[in-house]
């Protein structure tokens, strides 16, 4: 008898990769934006 393949580890793996990449993208973009705007305000004040 052929054993059926459990698909759930693949589903969890795919969502893990996707969600991690998106969280990193949003966090990186947010931090870069805040840092750039802070630097602009500092340069403006000088």
């Amino acid at each position, binding site marked *: 008898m052929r054993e059926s393949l459990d698909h759930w580890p*693949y589903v969890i793996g795919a969502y893990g990769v996707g969600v991690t990449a998106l969280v990193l993208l949003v966090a990186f973009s947010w931090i870069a934006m805040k840092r750039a705007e802070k630097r602009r305000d500092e340069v403006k004040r000088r």
Partner: protein
Amino acid sequence: MLAGGAVGWGLFMAPAEALQGESVRILFIHVPSAWLGMGGWTGIAISSAMLLIWKHPLAAIAARAIAMPGMVFCAICLATGSIWGRPTWGTWWEWDGRLTSILVLLFLYAGYIALSQATARSGGTDKIAAIFGLVGAVNIPIINRSVVWWNSLHQPPSITAGNSSMTAEYLVPLLIAVVGFSLLFGAVVLMRMRTLIALQQVEARLRRRAMDDEPALAAQPAMESV
């Protein structure tokens, strides 16, 4: 919230599919990523055309802002597609038209980011990256038609203009996921645009200050010698 809700719906509420089994749930993240990976480059091509034709100052910034999220979505598409392929096709990767053209798109994104950063650093013109963005757009119809033109493991398009071979229980959460991920993509592009504009303002201000200081510095040694 829309993206999270649709992903939750796809993960926990949508039923397993007869042929694909539980791995059908991967499509709720794979398909929006594929569309946004291709949509991202379409955005770069439109912005590049706007830069070359109308010389709009925001066009170059918009194209550069789109590149990073576009590349991330393209990479997610490849990774999730590969993971989906293992239980469904029995292989992680197949060098067929669709997979290879998406991989080419990922390399195009990497090339565009490297080129636009290099020209921005060296003070070069944005036109080189814009031409690259326009030429790279040739790959978009190739990706779209690849499953029709060549024999492929990848299934033909399930959703075409005004028609869908998907049942509502998969189609509705998938469309909500597409809207949600598109809004997330838009938010990231706006953040990247704000970052690039702020960096340009810093550079312009520092350059202006350096130019203002230059005559004073040039005059200083002359005064000392007198």
